[in-house]
C-alpha cells in the first residue's frame, strides 16, 4: 500500500509538468482550434532566453517576468508574420507549417546554445517537501503555480470582457465579427498567451528535465495526451488530465511487468485512446452536436 501511495505521489509530481504543458496546449486550441506542434519548442526557446538572462546576471524573478513578456510578444509576432497569411490555407497545410516552425526553432536553439545539457535553477529549492522523499519543494511549487495559473485563466475567460471576446472569436468567428470583435487580433492574443503559458511551463520543467533543445519532445507528447484526455475545450480538464497521465504512467511502470521506461509512453497513450473511444470528446470536453 505504501508503494502505491508513493507511486501516486510521484505521479502527481510528474503530472504537474504535463498539466502545465496541457494548459498551454488547451489555450492555443481555444484560440486557433487546432493543436500547435511547435508549442514545446516555443517553450524551450523561451526557457533558454530566461537562462541566458540569468547568465547575464538578471535575478530569477526578473528573468521570469522578462521572459514572459518576450514569449508573449514572440507568440504574437509568429502569428502575425507566419500564420496569419496561412489563415485561408487548408488545415493540413497549417499543420505542415507547425512542423516547419518546430524544425526552425529547434535547429536555431541548437546553434545558439548547443546541445549540451544545462542546469537550470529553481526558485523553490529542492529539499524534500513536508518530509516526503518523493515530492521536492520545487515540485510542490510547480503544482502550486499550475493551480494558480488555472484559477487565473478561469477568471480571465469567465469574468473579463476580453476573455469573453476571445471565447466568442474561437467558437463562432462570423457572429463574433458581426458584433464588433476583432477576431484576427483575438487569435494573435491567443498565440501570445499560449506562448507565455508555455514559457512558464518550460521554466518550471527545466530544473527537472534539464535544459537542452530536445527537452520538450517527450513532455509535449504527454501534454497533448493530457489535454486530449481531459477534453480540449476545458482548461480544468487539461490540468486534471495531466495529473492522471502522470499517475497512470508511474503506476503502469511499477505494476505491469516488463514495462521499462520505453514502454511507459505507449501504455499511457493506449489508456488515453481507450478513454477516448468511450468518451470521444475527452473527460470534460463539450460534446459538439453536428448537423448538416
Amino acid at each position: 500500500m505504501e508503494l502505491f501511495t508513493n507511486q501516486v505521489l510521484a505521479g502527481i509530481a510528474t503530472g504537474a509538468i504535463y498539466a502545465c504543458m496541457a494548459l498551454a496546449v488547451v489555450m492555443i486550441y481555444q484560440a486557433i482550434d487546432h493543436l500547435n506542434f511547435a508549442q514545446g519548442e516555443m517553450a524551450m526557446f523561451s526557457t533558454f532566453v530566461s537562462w541566458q538572462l540569468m547568465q547575464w546576471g538578471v535575478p530569477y524573478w526578473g528573468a521570469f517576468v522578462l521572459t514572459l513578456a518576450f514569449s508573449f510578444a514572440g507568440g504574437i509576432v509568429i502569428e502575425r508574420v507566419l500564420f496569419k497569411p496561412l489563415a485561408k490555407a487548408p488545415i493540413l497545410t497549417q499543420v505542415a507549417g507547425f512542423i516547419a516552425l518546430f524544425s526552425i526553432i529547434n535547429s536555431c536553439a541548437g546553434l545558439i546554445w548547443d546541445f549540451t545539457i544545462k542546469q537550470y535553477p529553481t526558485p523553490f529549492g529542492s529539499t524534500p517537501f513536508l518530509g516526503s522523499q518523493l515530492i521536492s519543494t520545487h515540485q510542490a511549487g510547480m503544482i502550486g503555480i499550475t493551480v494558480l495559473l488555472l484559477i487565473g485563466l478561469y477568471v480571465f475567460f469567465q469574468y473579463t470582457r476580453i476573455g469573453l471576446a476571445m471565447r466568442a472569436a474561437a467558437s463562432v468567428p462570423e457572429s463574433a465579427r458581426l458584433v464588433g470583435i476583432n477576431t484576427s487580433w483575438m487569435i494573435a492574443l491567443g498565440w501570445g498567451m499560449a506562448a507565455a503559458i508555455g514559457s512558464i511551463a518550460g521554466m518550471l520543467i527545466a530544473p527537472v528535465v534539464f535544459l537542452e533543445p530536445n527537452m520538450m519532445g517527450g513532455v509535449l507528447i504527454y501534454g497533448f495526451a493530457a489535454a486530449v484526455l481531459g477534453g480540449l475545450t476545458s482548461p480544468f480538464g487539461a490540468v486534471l488530465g495531466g495529473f492522471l497521465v502522470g499517475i497512470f504512467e508511474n503506476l503502469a511502470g511499477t505494476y505491469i511487468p516488463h514495462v521499462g521506461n520505453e514502454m511507459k509512453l505507449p501504455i499511457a497513450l493506449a489508456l488515453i485512446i481507450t478513454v477516448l473511444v468511450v468518451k470521444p470528446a475527452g473527460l470534460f470536453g463539450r460534446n459538439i452536436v453536428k448537423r448538416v
Partner: protein
Amino acid sequence: MSAIEEVGSQAPAVEAVPKRAMTLSSGTAFVVVLLLLVVPLFVKNFIIFQMTMLLIYGLAVLALNILTGGSGQFSLGQSAFYAVGAYTSAILMEQYNINYALTLPVAGVVCFGFGFLFGQPALRLSGVYLALATFALATAMPQILKLGFFEHWTGGVQGLVVTKPDAPFGLPMSQDMWLYYFTLAITIAIYIFSVNLLRSRSGRAFMAIRDNEIAASAMGIDVATYKTLAFGVSAGITGVAGGLGAIAVQFVAPDSYTIVLAISLFLGMVVGGVGWLPGSFIGAAFIIFVPNIAEGISKGLSGAVFGVLLFLIIFLVPHGARQVAMVAQQLLSKVRKT
C-alpha cells in the same frame, strides 16, 4: 453543455478534390512512365537507388492520400503500417526463405488486416483525436518490435539484415537496376488500382464521407464500413511499400520506423497536394531530397533551412504541387486556344 456545429456551412477539414482532378491526363502519364523507364539506363547506381526509394515513399504517401485525401481521415500512424510491412517481408525472406516477390502480397494482406482492425476503434474518433490515436500507434510500434517476446522473429533492437535479390533469368543488369524496375512495375500496378478504386463506387463513398459524413450516411452510405475499408486499403499499400523498402535498404530495425517517418509521409502528402494522387511522388521527392539540400546549405542549421524551405513552399503554393499542376494546365489550354 453542448454546442451545435454547422457542418454544412463550415469548410471541411480536408478540401474536396473533384474526382477528375485526382489523376494525370493520359498524355502526361505516358511521358512520365517513359521517363521513369529510360532514365535509369543513363545514371549511376546510387541515383537508381534513390529513385527506387522515391517510388517506395511515393507509394506510402499515395496510401496516406487515399486515406486523408480520399476519405478525409487523418493519420500520423503510417510508419507503424510501414514497419509491419517491412518486418513481414524481412521475416518471411530471412527466417522462412520465401521468395522476395511472394512476401509483398503477404505484407499487403497482413497490413490490410491490421489497418482494418485498427480502423474499428478509430471510427469513434475524428480530427485531432484520431491524430492522437494514430500517433500513439506510431510511437508504440518501435517499442513493440523491440520486445523480448518477439525477438526470436524480429531480431530485437539489432533488427534483421535482408539480402538483396539478383536479377532473374540471367538479365544483364545490376541488383539496384533490377530492383528499380521491379518496384516501378509494382508502383504502376498499385497506382492504377488506386485510381480505379477512387473512381469506383467505394471511391465515391469515401469522398462523400470526406465532404460531409452526416449527409453521406443520410444517402445510405455505410460510413463505418467504408471508413475502416479506407484504413485497410491505406495500410495495405503502405505495407507493400514497407516490404519493398526493407528489400531496397537491405535492413530492418525498430528505430527506422519512428514517428519521424510518419511525419515525413504527412509532409510529403501536403507538399504533393492533398487528394492529388500524382502529387504523392512529388511529395516523396521532397522528403527524400530536401533534407539533403538543407544539409548542403548549412550543416549546423539544416533543420532551420528545412523549415524555411517548407514555409516557402506552403506560402507560395498552399495546395501543394496540385496547385502548380492546375496552373500549368490552364496555361496550356490557353496556349492551345490561341
